[in-house]
């Protein structure tokens, strides 16, 4: 494996006359815990959408694991190893939790050669790890908010990713629930999965990240260790609106 897992090089995105991202470049190393912060509307989710392929980028290139994925549709990026959760959970509501994860295994892990039984076992192993095993046969429409967040991470994990992007998986959760989700992300990272975390809850970002990048109005304004970024004057201005 190369020293860089994900290389975002000069990526731009415009919506009509509005520039959401301008010349974003960043390298993510294998196994890294990377925090992405910035005020609302600064382009965090847009950047994630460009990386995961939900939106095509207008300029620049994205390389993942040695391949140029700039023009790949989202499903092919998932198959290469980029999985994500969503800011507003997007479960497959007509399916049980188990079935939600089976979609990811069946479609993202190409040629997995697993029997139905083995696929089920793999799903249960993931649910066990994330603490949802007792909900496997419940319809995903009936889950609570924190369970939905966990299920999204579990579904992302079922795609056997190298890179997991968590888009505000803790938004709207209570304090103890934030810790639960944070523990899950740390556990997954300990198994060797690279994690990009977008988060508004600063404590969580600071506790989790090895490196933090702050966006404002579609540009990188600061990047470095959590402490350095927190102390940066531009970051404080962006957040406080000075």
């Amino acid at each position, binding site marked *: 494996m190369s020293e860089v897992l994900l290389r975002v090089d000069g990526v731009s995105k415009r919506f009509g006359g509005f520039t959401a991202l301008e010349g974003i470049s960043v390298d993510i190393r294998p196994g890294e815990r990377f925090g992405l912060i910035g005020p609302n509307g600064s382009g965090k989710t847009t950047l994630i959408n460009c990386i995961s392929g*939900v939106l095509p980028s207008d300029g620049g290139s994205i390389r993942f694991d040695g391949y140029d994925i700039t023009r790949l*549709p989202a*499903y092919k990026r998932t198959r290469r190893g980029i999985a*994500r959760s969503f800011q507003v959970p997007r*479960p*497959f509501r007509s*399916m049980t939790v188990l079935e939600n994860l089976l979609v990811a295994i*069946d479609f993202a892990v190409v040629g997995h050669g697993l029997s139905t039984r083995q696929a089920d076992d793999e799903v249960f192993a993931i649910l066990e790890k994330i603490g949802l095993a007792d909900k496997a046969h419940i319809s995903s429409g009936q889950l609570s908010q924190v369970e939905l967040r966990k299920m999204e991470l579990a579904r992302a994990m079922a795609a056997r990713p190298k890179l997991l992007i968590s888009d505000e998986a803790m938004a709207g959760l209570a304090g103890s629930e934030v810790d639960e989700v944070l523990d899950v992300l740390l556990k997954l990272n300990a198994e060797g999965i690279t994690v990009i975390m977008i988060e508004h809850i600063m404590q969580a970002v600071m506790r989790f990240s090895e490196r933090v990048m702050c966006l404002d109005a579609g540009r990188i304004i600061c990047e470095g260790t959590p402490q350095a970024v927190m102390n940066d004057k531009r970051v404080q201005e962006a957040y406080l609106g000075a």
Partner: protein
Amino acid sequence: MMRGAGFWIGAAVFIALAFAMALTIRNEYAFFAGFVVLQFIVLATAWNILGGYAGYVNFGTSAFFGVGVYTAVFLLKAVAAPLWIQIGVAALVGAALGLGVGLLTLRLRGIFFSIATVAITIIAETLITNWKFVGGATGVQLLRPPVTPPFDSYIKMLFVIAAIMVVIAVALARYVQNSGIGRGLRAIRDDEIAAECSGVPTLNLKLVACALSGALMCAAGAPSAMYLQFADPVSAFNLNYSVSALAMSLIGGTSHWIGPVLGAILLATTQQLLTVTISSEINVLVLGVMLVLFVVVAPEGIIGLARKVWRLVRRGSS
């Protein structure tokens, strides 16, 4: 394994029954009406593959049906092709059309896709209206070839052929539902972006569904030319086919292959009865009223209603 066997035994019994009816019942009217019911089962089943499983509400059924009718007309006039070739070629044309239309429209979502499919009917109808070889706007009279034994009338033969087409359509829909494609389509219906990000090749799966659906719709249209011995653009591309196929699926329930079958039997039979007893105009009204009724009372269709009742019964007995 057992359930699969049950399905195929049922299918065999169904065709055998249709065959036996054709050989024993004298009254031709039963087959005249029965053919229409069977035809609607095929149309509703075909509609449900894209509209029900994937949630892409398609108003283009009449376009595919009409193209099927005119594929048969063209083959008949050009090379006097036998019926089974008309149906087979219509299926191929339908698959190709489904693929083409899908590539153009399936990037649109929700209501935008639905509107685009309405346009397809208008385009197809306009093209045929201006094509002199197949009769243009005035339509074309068709002569039936002599009937193939053991049948003693053409309409009975068409009835049995329609029965076979029902089995093929339902078997295909059932296969799609139970295969990985079915789970992928369900994921698309629930949340397309999440599906794509879970590795589901959404566009490809939708194209497969659209091609299958289109092939079955066109094939359903093909024998219609010989059934009426006449074809004209206004009736071949009648919007009624679109509305009926959609209504039958929704009323039956879209989550299972049996839904469109039940919906088509219920609605098409009612329509046939009303056409005879009251008037052919009233059946459109009935369609509308029943659709509204089901959307309000049983949004999951007959299947959903049956499940609810079943749950109540089980709770009552335990």
